[in-house]
């Protein structure tokens, strides 16, 4: 069972920022700037939480909150 804050902590660790700076409303592209870094983050989360995303899943993901929701949704939590 994972919770929102665990996923946020993983994202924060990846972008090397405190979790408090990685709020749900923060745009992912403000956090990582380069699209290939975003690919790395997305794969990091899939590996860490044993989930799989498809491109259609990511098309609506814009913010940290969206990405956390996606992970939790895939985990069924």
């Amino acid at each position: 069972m994972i919770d929102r804050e665990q996923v946020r902590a993983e994202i924060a660790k990846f972008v090397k920022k405190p979790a408090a700076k990685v709020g749900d409303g923060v745009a992912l592209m403000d956090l990582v700037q380069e699209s290939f870094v975003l690919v790395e983050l997305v794969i990091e989360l899939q590996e860490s939480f044993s989930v799989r995303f498809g491109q259609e899943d990511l098309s609506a993901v814009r913010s940290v909150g969206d990405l956390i929701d996606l992970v939790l949704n895939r985990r069924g939590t």
Partner: protein
Amino acid sequence: MPHPDLPLDEPLNENELWILSFYRTSEISGSLFFGKLARTLRPGPIQIDMTKHFADEAQHAWYWTECIRDLGAKPLKLADAYQDQYASTAGMPANLMEVLAITQIFERRVINQYTRHLKAPGLKPPIARTLEKIMQDELWHIDWVKKALESLEPEYGKETIEQTIERFRAADREVYANTMKEHEERLRALFGD
């Protein structure tokens, strides 16, 4: 030290320096990307092969740096690598399978480009040697990625993998056409076609 079989009065021309720097930039970008992914992946065959792939790309970047230096020049600082354009054309890869699919397409493009370069008129021996050396590794890259994609078929489905490869193949054609168009004059001067 410059290579002994190259006359010192035959420096790289502007187009040659540009394309070798372009290759170098692309190898550096590939290396950095695969290195970070190799660090992320869970233990297993893909983690091992991706780590080797990362090391190869870093080595290739060195080969190009060395080749440029041996030909009496300094690498140009180029902002973007060829593969940086894939994400904006085909959407970013969403998972490991998609990363491998895009890698397979890119590696085939590299081999095609290096083969084309080997046939360029007046090719300097150090450039030919570097191309040949790198192409050996590139063949292994295509092989391991193909096997890795096959190993992912139970998880993602063969059809989905094939569709993904096709999507990135179409994107590569577009990126290649744009690159050719953008650098048409240089490439015509280099390859004589």
